[in-house]
């Protein structure tokens, strides 16, 4: 495992109190594999990744848990120094984080010389190499960001992230803002990078179709916690947590015959005052009394098997059958309007 996250807790202090954006998340990234971190807005996936990188907002702090990279425990202090070189981060809307007054090539060279301590000539050669790696023509190094299309800017952002040969790439919604054909090209490029460079990757996204296309493993987050994780094929075909089952139903599938989309009623909990026990309980069609008092948490990182944070995990197969029936969800939809 190149990265292990164990019981991570990240709290934001706001005027309204502490918001427990991530509350006990555990997952692992096997070396050379692509892990998809999937969940809806507010589930804590972006926060988790930013915490790993050490780029949390001012009012965020780690309130518990461990992050282990290549066998070494890391925290905010060590992350910054060591890890822009070994872990690279492509933030959300990286495309608009390119400085508009410098050419893209110049920005790439700057990363290489300032952070990588390369000489200018080495840097220039490497910049050309990086562009080639991400499928951009070398002649474009002299262009300004506004001359690039959205997809090209994203490629450039990825090139910058790869400049110093990281072993792990953390990408936050790298294809969300892109058109579907460009999106597919970027995803193919990421797969290609993984194979060529043996790069490990964590891809944060809300789109399970993207995860299905690109990722080897998937980690599903809900309300600050990891509720299911495992190989992509397994989790998508045979989900074990009711939330994942519901998410499957809510996601349109271009190729399926089903013409029914079933919403999950209600909305995610307020993270400044989360409910006791399982956080999905208020919306879960399979809720038991025990669910509201105690929650199952995913066991510590390191397990490659398919794990689910549900008290009724042993009944997963029959629950899954029931979940495929829209009526199951419509009953729980009456709790509250989403």
């Amino acid at each position, binding site marked *: 495992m190149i990265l292990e996250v164990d019981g991570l807790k990240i709290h934001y202090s706001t005027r309204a109190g502490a918001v427990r954006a991530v509350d006990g998340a555990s997952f692992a990234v096997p070396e050379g594999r692509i892990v998809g971190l999937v969940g*809806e*807005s507010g589930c804590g996936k972006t926060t988790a990744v930013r915490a790993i990188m050490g780029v949390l907002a001012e009012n965020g702090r780690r309130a518990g848990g461990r992050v282990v990279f290549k066998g070494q425990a890391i925290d905010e202090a060590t992350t910054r120094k060591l890890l822009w070189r070994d872990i690279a981060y492509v933030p959300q809307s990286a495309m608009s984080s390119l400085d508009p007054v410098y050419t893209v090539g110049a920005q790439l060279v700057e990363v290489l010389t300032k952070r990588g301590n390369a000489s200018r000539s080495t840097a220039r050669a490497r910049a050309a190499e990086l562009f080639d790696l991400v499928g951009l023509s070398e002649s474009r190094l002299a262009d300004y960001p506004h001359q690039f*299309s*959205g*997809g*090209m800017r994203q490629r450039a952002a990825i090139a910058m992230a790869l400049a110093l040969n990281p072993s792990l790439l953390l990408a936050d919604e790298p294809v969300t803002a892109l*058109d*579907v*054909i*460009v*999106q*597919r*090209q970027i*995803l*193919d490029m990421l*797969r290609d990078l993984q194979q060529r460079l043996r790069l490990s990757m964590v891809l944060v996204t*809300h*789109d*399970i*179709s*993207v*995860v*299905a*296309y690109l990722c080897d493993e998937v980690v599903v987050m809900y309300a600050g916690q990891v509720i299911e994780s495992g190989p*992509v*094929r397994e989790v*998508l*075909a045979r989900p074990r947590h009711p939330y994942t089952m*519901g*998410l*499957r*139903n*809510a*996601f*349109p*599938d*271009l*190729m*399926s015959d089903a*013409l029914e*989309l*079933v*919403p*999950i*009623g209600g*909305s995610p909990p307020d993270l400044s005052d989360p409910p006791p026990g399982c956080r999905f309980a208020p919306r879960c069609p399979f809720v038991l009394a025990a669910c509201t008092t105690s929650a199952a948490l995913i066991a510590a990182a390191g397990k490659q098997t398919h794990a689910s944070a549900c008290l009724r995990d042993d009944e997963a197969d029959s629950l899954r059958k029931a979940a495929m029936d829209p009526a199951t969800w419509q009953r729980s*939809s009456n709790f509250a*309007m*989403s």
Partner: protein
Amino acid sequence: MATLVELRDVVKHFPVARSLGEVVRGAHPAVRALDGVSFDVGSGDAVAIVGESGCGKTTLGRLMLKLVEPTAGSIAFDGTPLAGLAGEGLRHFRRQAQLVFQNPFDALNPRFTIYRAVAEPLLNAGIDKAEHMDRVASAFRRVHLPDLDRYLDKYPHQLSGGQLQRVVLARALVLAPRFLVADEPVSMLDVSVRAGILALMREVRDSMGLSAVYISHDLALVRYLCERTLVMYLGCIVEDGPTEEIVRRPRHPYSQALVAAVPVPDADQSRAPLPISGNVPDAREPPSGCRFRDRCPRAMAHCAEETPLLRPIADGHRVACHLDLA
């Protein structure tokens, strides 16, 4: 089926600031957002307009609502051309054709209460104040927000995305329009919320007999709402036909690439290379003849010379391509 909206050869060019050289040369560069679009929307139809950014779908939606004027061509609503509409005629049109926005957080004035926001169309249409509460209540019922007291006095920032989008829909429905244009109505909502809104839109459409145009980049979504889809590329319609047909057997090479590019929640999906190359060309200088030819895997010499027109290849299915695609 009566035709409600009729577009004929609609062209929209956005002039671009000229450089000195262009002024001297007498050139008038423009972004050619739409170049000759013609189609009909029948009463009660649900039509999807699908395409990537820059294809002109958003502009088309705005043109159909007379928020923007066409450079050339004609648009008619219920037999009346939109071009000359003003005053009372325009107000009458505005009552019948409404828009549902992409971003629910921005579509409502943050300083208005929810009630005020939904009642605004009634104010603009000069409806008697005594009727307002009734109409607002009935619009709220339609969008399944029946507990009025919970919402009416609140401000937009106090509601969730899904609730806001229902309010936006309520506002669009409060005047009982006949025609709705929805521009990416769920793209800014969370996945688990989208399903609810889409189901609502389907239900509203059926119960009110609305004609609707859904603009989206997401083919998978429009499948749930529309029986008919128009695929657009760089300002032109390239394929117009039944949604299921287009998804299962796309005919136009661009449609084929589009359908192949959509990922699905299946780990065993195809990862074959897309039958398309290059990037979208500059909308100021599209390729001559067929606009897709420089990316098309099956382009022929003829494609550069003559722009293909939409021609029927089956009942209710048109394609703009020189290839024999029947």
